[in-house]
């Protein structure tokens, strides 16, 4: 198992390197215009462009340019010329809000996604299954901004049950922190609850026809044990995959939800930067987001090996 983990981590570093090269090419090489001008932003002076050209070494070879850019991103002196602020600092500032949002939403969507999927599968064809199906399809279909608007209108402005988003530090007041995040959590989670419960339901229905489930019944296990230990457990792998990809992608910033609820996280920063075509932060956030996608992909593979022993290929277990 240790060797498997190590192999995955090495692979992860390789993928991250490839992602960084791609980011560099997409932003600095492929567009057929002066990169310094694009980085300088909309209201650039010739002086600024000249100094950027020098600082980023756009006259040097491509590998040189790549190294310069990576140095800037990772040493923390990447600057947004548009907003005149340090990009890395802004991203770090946004992390607590984004992570709070994503973690809370993930707990909700995994819990209810698995619960609803399990109930649907066990009661397939019944009334509960149909009700949950309607809920799931509705959850998948309603766009995030629509749902957020409905929540804000009815639960914040008309009834004032929940505050209208914004982020309160966990350390300063945990209760406020949660209260402010409840609506964003639910908004973000609902799509995933619907989707995950449908995927789990169909996986479980497939698993129920497996020979080993018949064996489990034949040896005298109770129906609940059959369902949880044999059907559910063997149906979780695709859910874990989805979770890894979705969660990893969200950690790079939940742009819509952060934007609507005015949560000052990485997503909101991305949103503002995109609006202003502010290239340095966009570049940094792409790398930041890619890191989590790749990280969670590796974690998914490791979780797979734990869930299904047949995956531990090349391991000396056999």
């Amino acid at each position, binding site marked *: 198992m240790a060797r498997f983990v190590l192999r995955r981590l090495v692979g992860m570093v390789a993928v991250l390197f490839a992602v960084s090269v791609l980011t560099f090419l997409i932003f600095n090489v492929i567009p057929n215009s002066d990169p310094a001008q694009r980085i300088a932003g909309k209201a650039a002076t010739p002086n600024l462009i000249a100094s950027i050209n020098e600082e980023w070494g756009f006259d040097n070879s491509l590998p040189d340019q790549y190294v310069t850019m990576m140095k800037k991103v990772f040493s923390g002196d990447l600057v947004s010329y548009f907003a005149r602020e340090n990009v890395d600092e802004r991203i770090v500032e946004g992390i607590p809000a984004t992570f709070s949002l994503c973690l809370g939403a993930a707990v909700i969507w995994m819990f209810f996604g698995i619960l609803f999927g399990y109930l649907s599968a066990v009661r397939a*064809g019944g009334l509960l299954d149909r009700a949950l199906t309607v809920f799931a399809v509705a959850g998948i279909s309603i766009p995030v901004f629509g749902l957020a608007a409905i929540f804000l209108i009815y639960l914040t402005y008309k009834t004032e049950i929940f505050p209208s988003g914004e982020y309160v530090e966990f350390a300063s007041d945990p209760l406020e922190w949660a209260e402010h995040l409840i609506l964003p959590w639910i908004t973000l989670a609902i799509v995933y609850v619907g989707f995950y419960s449908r995927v789990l339901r169909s996986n479980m229905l497939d698993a129920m026809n*497996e*020979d*080993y489930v*018949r*064996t*489990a*019944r*034949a*040896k*005298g*296990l*109770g*129906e609940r*044990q059959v369902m949880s*230990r*044999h059907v559910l*457990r*063997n149906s979780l792998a695709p859910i874990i995959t989805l979770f890894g990809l979705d969660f990893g992608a969200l950690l790079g910033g939940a742009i819509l939800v952060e934007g609507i609820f005015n949560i000052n996280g990485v997503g909101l920063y991305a949103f503002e930067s995109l609006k202003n075509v502010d290239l340095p932060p966009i570049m940094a956030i792409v790398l930041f987001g890619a890191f989590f996608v790749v990280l969670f992909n590796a974690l998914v593979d490791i979780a797979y090996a734990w*869930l*299904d*022993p*047949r995956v531990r290929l090349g391991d000396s*277990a*056999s």
Partner: protein
Amino acid sequence: MSGEPLLAVRDLRVGFATEGGRVQAVDGVSFELAPGEVLAIVGESGAGKSVTAQTIIGLTKSGNARIEGSVRLRGTELIDAGDEELRKVRGERVGMVFQDPMTSFNPVYRIGAQIVEAIRAHRDGASKADARERAIELLDSVGIPDAPRRIDAYPHEFSGGMRQRAMIAMALALEPEVLIADEPTTALDVTVQAQILALLERLNRERGLATILITHDLGVVAEVADRVVVMYAGRVIEQGTLDEIFYDPQHPYTWGLLGSLTRMDRERPQRLPQISGAPPSLLDLPQGCSFRPRCPHEFGRCSELPGLDARLAEAPSHLDRCWFSPEDKRERRLVEGEIGLEAPAR
């Protein structure tokens, strides 16, 4: 048969509602299993063998299944038993082994854990350590070498034969009175088949374990069975002792099965004999005898379903469903001096 049978199946009917209509997979099957006996149920795919076997412990129960008749285990009715009552019978009193050992173990748990799970499902008080000890003992007794180490292997780390041995060990974990083996050797290599059969035979001999062996392989039947039930299209068409079925078969279908066996003690035929045609669709059974469309000896009365009756004065336990008189049958079943079924006239 002396005294009360261990297991008595009476007029068992299992029907499934399908999109094409109602499929009567099992239609009025009756047989008994005596303590210590090996009963073989033979027939081709779709004859209803597996459905019969699985219905005994309620595995075919579902929304679209209609199950009628009676299955009594030492006098206790199982057909209308509740879930908890059935659960206690499964594994504890009736063990079951399935056809494909590759897929019958859950791939994500260790072999030992799955046996321990079976034990603890019925012994609330059993500690994990005790159950594990017992599992090692069981694996050892079915001939798995180095059981204390192999118990922690995953199913994919076992060969097919080893998995089937482990499957049998699991089925025997609680010392059931009846073992149902549903095509236990079909998915295995021929040499491994022989080993598994030898194992089943040894268990029967040493422990007096009553066994229902479901198979389509008459070679397997000849080796281990005491009595034989032949099924065709959901019905029993003949049943009797091993010798009765092999040396004095009464139903043309049985003749055909025996005639299509390849035998090492005979000259090799040009072409392997076969029963022409295919089994009927259960959605559209012929009227009367279901074997009628494939039978070269068909005559007028065959459109009327014969009962499963004893037609031989000297063998009251030998039952069959064919209208011909025993004398007629003994004459008709000879094809070039051997028991067989001639190809129907075209």
